[in-house]
């Protein structure tokens, strides 16, 4: 088992790369941060604490993540927009079966073409990370939003 300091330095670049992928609009690459069988959810602090199963987004496989991006690119209609993730403190701990549990706080600024720029979301990821032959991947990623209210719509992943 790795020492926690070493764990921290192994995991931190994963988050930097993850945020960079979204913020630089390389959305097709986003599902590659996950294992094929995975759980990705965007939910609210209120729902999470009450153990309510429905949040804002819930995906049970990498296929569903790919479909999210496919829908965003080809089907959904929304104003051009992008995100800037503001990454907070990272907490990591080794868990059973060689997996890593990690939490990281985040803020998301949403920028529209008009120049409107707002603090769109804040929250914390509760993640389970595994070592694969291709590097670290998320087996589970739950984005728990601090607020239960979303402005307009949420189409770009967090």
């Amino acid at each position, binding site marked *: 088992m790795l020492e926690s300091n070493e764990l921290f330095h192994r995991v931190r670049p994963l988050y930097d790369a993850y945020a960079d992928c979204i913020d630089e609009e390389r959305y097709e690459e986003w599902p590659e941060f996950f294992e094929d069988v995975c759980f990705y959810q965007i939910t*609210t602090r209120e729902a999470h604490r009450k153990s309510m199963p429905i949040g804002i987004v819930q995906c049970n496989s990498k296929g569903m993540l790919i479909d999210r991006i496919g829908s965003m690119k080809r089907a959904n209609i929304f104003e051009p927009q992008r995100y800037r993730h503001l990454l907070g403190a990272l907490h990591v701990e080794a868990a059973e079966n060689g997996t890593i549990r990690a939490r990281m706080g985040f803020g998301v600024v949403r920028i529209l073409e008009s120049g409107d720029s707002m603090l769109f979301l804040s929250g914390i990821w509760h993640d389970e990370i595994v070592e694969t032959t291709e590097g670290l991947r998320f087996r589970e990623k739950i984005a728990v939003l601090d607020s239960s209210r979303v402005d307009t719509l949420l189409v770009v992943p967090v």
Partner: protein
Amino acid sequence: MSDVELQAQRIEWPKEGVSRVPFEIYTNDALYESEQDLLFKGPIWNFVGVDVEIPAVGDFKTNFVGDTPVVVVKSSADSYSAFVNRCAHRGSTLCYEKTGNRDAFTCVYHNWSYDLEGNLKTVAFHKGVRGKGGLPDDFRTCDHNLQKLRVQSLCGLLFVSFDEDAPELETFLGPKMCAHIQRIFSKKIRILGTFSQHMHNNWKLYMENVKDSYHASLLHLFFTTFKLNRLSMQGGLILDGDGGHHISYSKMATDAGGGTDYESGGLRAQNDEFALHDNRILKSWPEFDDGVTHAIQGIFPNLIVQQIQNSLALRLLIPRGVNGCELVWIMFGYESDTQEETDIRVALSNLVGPAGLVSMEDGVIGSFVQRAIVGNQGRETVLEMGGRTVESQESRVSEASVRGFWQAYRKYMRL
């Protein structure tokens, strides 16, 4: 008539009637104020919550009627009370939490305390201190109760009214709307999720969007993009309550082999690029004996009951000033659901809400209108799809229920 009403009445409705709506209806500040009095506090019933949200005596929930803050509380084993969320003394907010439980409602400002029905029971330092100060001898606590609302319920849905002259709830809803509510709420529900969505448009633009069955396959391209063949869908529009209430329903055809067309492969994704990688978000089971798979019910003025296959939800629209509104979603299933049924409802929830693959566009389309009608006073919207009248129709390629909304709106608003 108040100044506000007079200003609102200056909006002249086009001579064509409900097939035209003046753009000013979405932008006029005086009209917004007038809506609070004539509509939301008028002779109607406003949805505020579900009985399962406040199961025990003393449980309360805060909400809004129009933009007026209210509290609804389970005040005894078999009754509910509701009042404006405002102390009768200095007007301070009484409950500043979303939900909670109280023996009594005591204002934090000066400790005036009310029972669960909103009656003033005690006033701090009522008799002053050591014989000095205090209230006048003729002060009567019963003259200073909270501003109470009427409460009536149907199948656990709690509605309130400010108006003594409002008809009984079931009369207001009408038999067709009551029957549909009874259809969905025949079993005890379990809340599976709640969240809200702020939209940058006048509240009425969202309600029109809900009632507009014409736009569905045009604005929302998920199904067509992924070549998801929904086969033939029979359906129609049912209107009631002076046109203000509606149900838009359809029956997704099922294959003879049983189960839904999704499960049996009737739903076809035709090539790789436009195929879904995981079809679980489309899985459903036939839940209602009448075969109706999709039903959107709009209860005038601002409640929606949603059945999209097995995705069930209540949506309450709260006006937030003339240029904004907040849509509160209550996603639910039933207490009797199996884990598999809950899983299907959870997966289907990906289609709706602020990130809904099928319907996220509804969160922004109202603001596309709101920002374009600035400076266009004197112009109007056109509503002639399916004719110019208000009536139940077999085709959903129609704006009849949007016209119905305006017919009811004009009645309450005296426009």
